[in-house]
């Protein structure tokens, strides 16, 4: 039962939507006269709400789907529409004033979406960090548009293949997802690339194991290494951009070259 309440509390977050919905539902229960509206918009959501709160239903759901997605049952309950419908019916005699007051209450008790921390000014029309496009373009220029394997810092991996699928990676966004943590995978490349102070010997051993032709590292992590020292490990600095250094692994020949004749210009892709 606590898991169900947790799902409800997490869903409602720091607002009062569920409370407003319950109030609207009760009001409609007593004041809605149209019997079809009652059947579909009062009794049906009420039944779904009761079902959601029943532990046997939670157990059944958990057998079919991951239990942390149980909140999706609440998606079937039209909370927003019920609150809006009940609200306008409640204040229909003075509609403008009523809607203004209700709107203010909903705004003050809600959470302004456009202040969300994951929402940032778009840097381009793809709505991905511009640095990812710059890094990808530099790599594609170096390969002549051929497919290649690149080891990237974990903070960039979720964006790279949203721009260019010719860049393959030894690991991707799955490294950040809890459900993959228990899989028995060799994450030597991940640890080597994302280490605070990369050991070049460990790094090159790991990237060679995964046939990586390039490795991208934060430039700050390469302070203290000059070109000669990098060359000792078959690493060549080909470009730097946006605080990242792109190193070509000279020990690996690119085995992922395309069979097709044409290779798209990266600039043309960015134009869309």
């Amino acid at each position, binding site marked *: 039962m606590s898991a169900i309440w947790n799902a409800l509390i997490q869903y409602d977050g720091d607002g009062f*939507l569920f409370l407003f919905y319950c109030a609207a539902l009760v009001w409609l229960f007593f004041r809605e006269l149209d019997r079809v509206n009652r059947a579909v918009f009062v*009794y049906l959501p009420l039944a*779904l709400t009761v079902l959601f709160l029943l532990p046997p239903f939670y157990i059944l759901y958990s057998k079919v789907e991951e239990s942390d997605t149980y909140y999706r049952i609440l*998606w079937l309950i039209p909370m927003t529409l019920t609150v809006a419908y009940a609200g306008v019916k409640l204040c*229909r005699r003075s509609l*403008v004033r009523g809607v203004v007051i209700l709107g203010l209450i909903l705004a003050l008790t*809600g959470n302004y979406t456009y202040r969300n921390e994951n929402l940032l000014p778009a840097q381009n029309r793809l*709505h991905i960090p511009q640095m990812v496009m710059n890094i990808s373009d530099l790599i594609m220029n170096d390969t002549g548009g051929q497919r290649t394997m690149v080891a990237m810092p974990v903070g960039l991996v979720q964006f790279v293949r949203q721009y260019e699928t010719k860049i393959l990676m030894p690991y991707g966004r799955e490294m950040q997802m809890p459900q993959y943590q*228990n899989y028995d995978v060799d994450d030597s490349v991940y640890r080597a690339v994302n280490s605070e102070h990369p050991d070049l010997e460990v790094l090159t051993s790991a990237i060679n194991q995964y046939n990586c032709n390039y490795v991208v590292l934060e430039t700050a992590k390469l302070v203290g290494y000059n070109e000669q020292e990098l060359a000792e490990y078959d690493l060549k600095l080909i470009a730097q951009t946006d605080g990242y250094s792109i190193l070509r692994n000279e020990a690996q020949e690119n085995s992922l070259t395309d069979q097709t004749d044409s290779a798209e210009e990266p600039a043309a892709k960015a134009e869309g």
Partner: protein
Amino acid sequence: MSAICKLLGFFIFAGVVPVLSGMLPLSLFPGERRSFRLLILAGYLSAFALFELAGIPVLLLTPMGDFRLLAVLYTVLLAVWILCGALRLHGKGGMESAFLRAVRARFSRKRTDAAGEGRRTPDPEVLFFRIVFFAVLGFQLYKAYTMASYDGDDAYYVAQSVQAVQTGTMYHYIPYTGVTTVLDWRHALAMLPMWIAWVSTLCATHPTIVTHSMLPLVFLPLADAAAYSVLRELLDAGGQDKTWESDSDALSAAAMVLVEVLQIFGNLSIYTPESFLLLRTWQGKTVFVAVLVPAAFALLLQLGHSMEKGERTGGCAVLLLLLLNLSSCLCTSMAPFLILGLLLPGSLFLAVLYRKPKIIVTILLACIPNLVTGAVLFRQIQKVYFWQWFLGGK
């Protein structure tokens, strides 16, 4: 100029074409039921359903899932569907929506309408709420175009669209790494990323631009259209509501303003439909919760009200439910189960209300796509679990 052409192309293939797809289902309804909002809903349901019907065989029967074949096949299917719809609708008297009547009345030289009454001046309340609504919608569209929402799930879905466009294959590469793999059953049946790839191919635009910058310009109004459909069904019904003055135009416009407020201030948690709508507009889960679930309620209400009035539009509503269920399969793998969990209890309540058990059977027939999808997914997931157990994995 090129960017403008591409934007125009996007609005045609992701906006106009889906709406026109609604003509065929709409032609099955009696004239007075053919509203513009029904055209929009029926159109997108048709477009999504057709894509799912065309996509699944191509995915399963061609090597690596031939996306380019699917793009051609779907385009042809859609063209035929629209042509048939235009011919049938024309033959059945065309569209007599309130919107078209209002436009004609506005520009008509006649001082009176067909009933001999004076030309109606717009209700100031309705006008006020509509102006507010469109202003808020405009603000949402501006924010959607100028703000970037970084969501981890895009590493899967958007990468699948890009992969389809750049390699011509579907669901045979791991989107996170680019390594080839066997068909990803868990997600492959939900083909919305492929529909997005189709749109981006036709308007010659990078799929990620289409997904993040352009799709919200269409999906946000679509979500509002779905919400409006529910509210009109609720408010137009007030037949037995004798104690209240009926003014559904003003009430529905006012309710839409409240819906918009709840959307903008609905980021109470990462789980609410409002958060999904404004932060992850392009994802299948969002289309499901913001468009298909309200559409399901609108169709159940329409079915019930038709039965109340003794109209013979029940079959049309069931057809739309069938299209709705196919569209739900397109959106996300859980959607068929969830929508089934909504429609079956809904049919039960209507069956009890009208003492007609046949309603349950009729709606169950419209849910056949959900049952098929569920059976396929269940079998594939069982296979995966078996091999994991057999190989000693978790």
